[in-house]
């Protein structure tokens, strides 16, 4: 052994280099952020549109005199106007937030409050403009994502769960409950619950586009099968609303997971593509 080697061996162990893993390719990053912006605008303008007729029905028709399965309306009571949210047989007093809320210092008859809608003021024409502009963006961006992801086998490889993934569902649920995050090689691939969530949101966005199109009388003349698929225009409108609600749930869980898994590393990986692979304790 030479002296040089000896001195090297005697040196304190070097801090291990951070291992970067190229996790998200450019198309994924770009479509992710466009998708996020479009969904934000679509949700907020969608609520403004909802306010124009704050009742949801099941079936082929539905208007004021037909039973609504969900409604958010204001009613005059002995105690003054109250906002009442009705879901099936249940009624909730949601005054101040849903049905009857303040806009520019004065209470107004609004299903969703101004701070949740785009535009903040109530205007169906303007809300539709935002909605359809971003609907085009969402659809084209989604198409780019799907075509790219299927041809590069991103969906098949990274998102579609493998048989081993399916067997690991109970363990993955436990990992999520215990906030145990994968390290090393395991951190380079999506876990099975992530795969379900991403598959789910792809399906939900597809449902949003299809149920949105089903509400168009022009598209219905072109493909009437959409009406049969969703059980009628009013059912399609209801499914549109429920899918949007599930997307809100997805976004909430998604953001919580980003924070829990290390927000800087996670956000950086969606900006630059590079993800620092977390090291396990045993290393």
């Amino acid at each position, binding site marked *: 052994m030479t002296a040089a080697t000896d001195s090297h061996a005697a040196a304190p162990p070097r801090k291990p280099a951070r291992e970067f893993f190229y996790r998200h390719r450019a198309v994924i990053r770009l479509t992710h952020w466009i998708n996020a912006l479009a969904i934000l605008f679509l949700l907020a303008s969608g609520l403004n549109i909802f306010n124009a007729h704050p*009742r949801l029905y099941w079936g082929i028709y539905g*208007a004021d005199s037909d039973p609504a399965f969900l409604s958010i309306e204001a009613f005059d009571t002995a105690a003054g106007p109250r906002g009442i949210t009705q879901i099936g047989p249940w009624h909730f007093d949601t005054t101040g937030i849903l049905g009857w809320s303040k806009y520019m210092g004065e209470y107004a008859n609004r299903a969703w409050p101004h701070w949740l809608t785009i535009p903040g003021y109530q205007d169906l024409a303007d809300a539709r*403009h935002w909605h359809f502009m971003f609907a085009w963006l969402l659809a084209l961006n989604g198409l780019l994502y799907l075509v790219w992801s299927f041809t590069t086998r991103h969906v098949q490889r990274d998102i579609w769960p493998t048989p081993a993934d399916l067997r690991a569902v109970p363990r993955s649920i436990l990992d999520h409950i215990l906030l145990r995050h994968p390290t090393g090689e395991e951190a380079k691939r999506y876990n099975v619950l992530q795969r379900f969530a991403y598959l789910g949101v792809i399906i939900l966005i597809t449902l949003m586009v299809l149920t949105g199109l089903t509400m*168009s009388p022009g598209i219905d*003349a*072109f493909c009437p099968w959409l009406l049969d698929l969703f059980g009628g225009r009013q059912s399609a409108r209801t499914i549109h609303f429920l899918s949007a609600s599930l997307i809100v749930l997805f976004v909430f869980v998604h953001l919580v997971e980003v924070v829990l898994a290390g927000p800087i590393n996670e956000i950086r990986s969606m900006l630059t593509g590079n993800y620092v692979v977390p090291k396990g304790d045993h290393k």
Partner: protein
Amino acid sequence: MSNALKVTRRAAMAAGFAGAGVLVWEANSLTLTPAMQRIFRAAETWTKLAQRTLLLPGQLAREYPAADISPVFKANGTLNPGTDEYAASAANNFIDWRLKIDGLVAHPMSLSVAQIRKLPARTQITRHDCVEGWSAIGQWTGVPLGLLLKAAGIAPNARYAVFHCADNLDGEPAKGGQQSPGQYYESSDLVDAFHPQTIIAYALNGRPLDIPHGAPLRLRVERQLGYKMAKYVNRIEITDSFAGIAGGRGGYWEDRGYDWYAGI
């Protein structure tokens, strides 16, 4: 990647996020700016082009069996024009009501309701989709508009049918926005005017049209939203442009911010 490229990419990303932030934060004040309005109009044009490309001119809207008719067909917008002239005509069973067809036509016409009822009729059970979101199914009977336009002989430069109405509307609270009162009118292009299901209707669910639903004559354009389907129609003007008609956008709601193409 070179450093210069990295900096450029970083700047582009920062600009993108800043732009998105401004868009979200300033959405209210941006809505009515000329730049945003141009983008919105472009989106409307894509929608119209996409639907016109997909839809064959004669492709029909779905027709429903009688069992699917809504128990109550919601009436919206003007429920009664309320003028003395209209009230007098209604009291007289609209015997003096005239539907004029003029403008770019070879043979201007003026038809009574009785004359229109004698023409070949079409009956259809269709779904009415309001821009607000609700739907109602009803059975409509009327004369195909194409038949009337052929008889009137439209000029080669004709582009639109403008439907003038007897009602003055001062807005619909649910629709929000600027809602100055104005004489109701609507318009369609010739693709929709000559569509087989486009009719001047005089009966709903087998009974003469009642006042809330547009007595004595209203338009049905089944591949469009409800606001296109003018009620209390007394004149059809064939024209090559909307300039000079009310706000110049081709309809009461169009003048108040709504899209002229209402297929979605």
